């Protein structure tokens, strides 16, 4: 009678941990996916050792087929940490997953030695082991992606904060230098900060400078026009400046109608127009002008 499923695997994990670890580290060091430039051998060995001992503890208490129970929490936690740190170090997803998958070979070697000629039992045990390692590997890959996503989200937030300054240029004149692509979320932020600034300063003209906007498609143009209309509702005229030749061409080819808005090629021209308009409107401030 063959031993119950998983018995042999547990035995290997418990009794020959040291040899298993040696084989595993050796396999990882000789693998083509080794990144000795990103991680030292000592660190790799330490990670492998810690993971093996966590797996051993988990395998003793919990199910081998379902590594989602509470017994596996520590091992999962460890894998998540490893994935995150590797994501930050610049490993690729497959390189990170290989860390777990490379455990298969040393395990299989040992299983073969245990079972010898009993092909039936060997196949069963190998299947069980494969499933376990696969699940752990997939979990690693998922954690890796999650780590990457966190990084991307953080950078997006930082970019959002960086990219929307509203500057007071002169009495009653605001400038809004836009840098980077305008999506609807960013437009919302830009619009809100512009309107808020109009209330605070009582500005009557705002210059939206799009020198730093790489491309203007219909969507971006629509967002710009929305911002202009909202500012107009607050009683502030808008001038769009910094339109590069290529962008002028695209705008016309796309059939975007900017005829309701004053547009200027350069920021300096827009500023000159703004000065003129505020002067005409508010004659009592003539003295403040240069």
């Amino acid at each position, binding site marked *: 009678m063959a031993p119950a499923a998983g018995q042999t695997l547990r035995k290997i994990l418990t009794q020959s941990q040291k040899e298993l670890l040696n084989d595993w580290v050796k396999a990882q060091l000789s693998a083509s996916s080794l990144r000795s430039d990103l991680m030292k051998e000592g660190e790799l060995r330490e990670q492998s050792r810690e993971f093996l001992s966590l797996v051993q503890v988990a395998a003793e208490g919990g199910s081998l087929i379902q590594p989602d129970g509470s017994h596996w929490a520590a091992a999962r936690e460890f894998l998540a940490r490893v994935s995150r740190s590797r994501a930050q170090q610049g490993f690729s997803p497959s390189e990170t997953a290989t860390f777990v998958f490379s455990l298969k070979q040393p395990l299989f070697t040992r299983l073969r030695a245990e079972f010898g000629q009993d092909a039936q039992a060997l196949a069963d045990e190998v299947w069980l082991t494969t499933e376990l390692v696969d699940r752990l590997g997939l979990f690693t890959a998922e954690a890796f992606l999650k780590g990457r996503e966190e990084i991307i989200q953080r950078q997006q937030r930082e970019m959002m904060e960086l990219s929307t300054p509203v500057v007071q240029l002169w009495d009653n004149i605001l400038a809004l230098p836009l840098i980077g692509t305008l999506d609807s979320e960013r437009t919302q932020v830009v*619009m809100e900060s512009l309107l808020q600034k*109009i209330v605070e300063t009582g500005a009557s003209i705002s210059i939206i400078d799009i020198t730093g906007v790489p491309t203007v498609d219909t969507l971006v143009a629509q967002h710009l026009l929305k911002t202009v209309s909202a500012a107009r509702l607050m009683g502030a005229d808008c001038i769009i400046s910094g339109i590069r030749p290529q962008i002028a061409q695209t705008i016309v080819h796309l059939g975007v109608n900017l005829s309701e808005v004053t547009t200027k090629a350069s920021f300096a021209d827009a500023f000159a127009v703004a000065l003129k308009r505020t002067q005409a409107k508010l004659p009592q401030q003539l003295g403040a002008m240069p």
Partner: protein
Amino acid sequence: MEKIPILKMGRFLLVTVQVDMHDQLAMQLQEDLTERIVAARARGVLIDISSLEVVDSFIGRMISNIAAMARVLDAETVVVGIQPAVAVTLVELGLSLEGVRTALNVDRGMVLLQERLIAEQG
């Protein structure tokens, strides 16, 4: 029944919306205002909605309707004191109040109206 007061200032009418504008109130205002414009031979209407924090599409449409009616009666309409959030909502609703003049506050709105009166007289 509550009503939105319409004040006469020289040749201008001043409407300040101090309460939450609901549909019935907006209809009433439309009726009162057109009558007052004719009765007072007003040349300009200034609508201050600075205490309005929420607008829906109906109120937005009413504001632009009122302005259009006033224009037919030869009175220039200036809407002043639109809050940032209200401005964003109106734009998102596609109501950018075309043809209605807007200003940041009552002061600026008054300047706009007077400019027009001076331009016509001069």
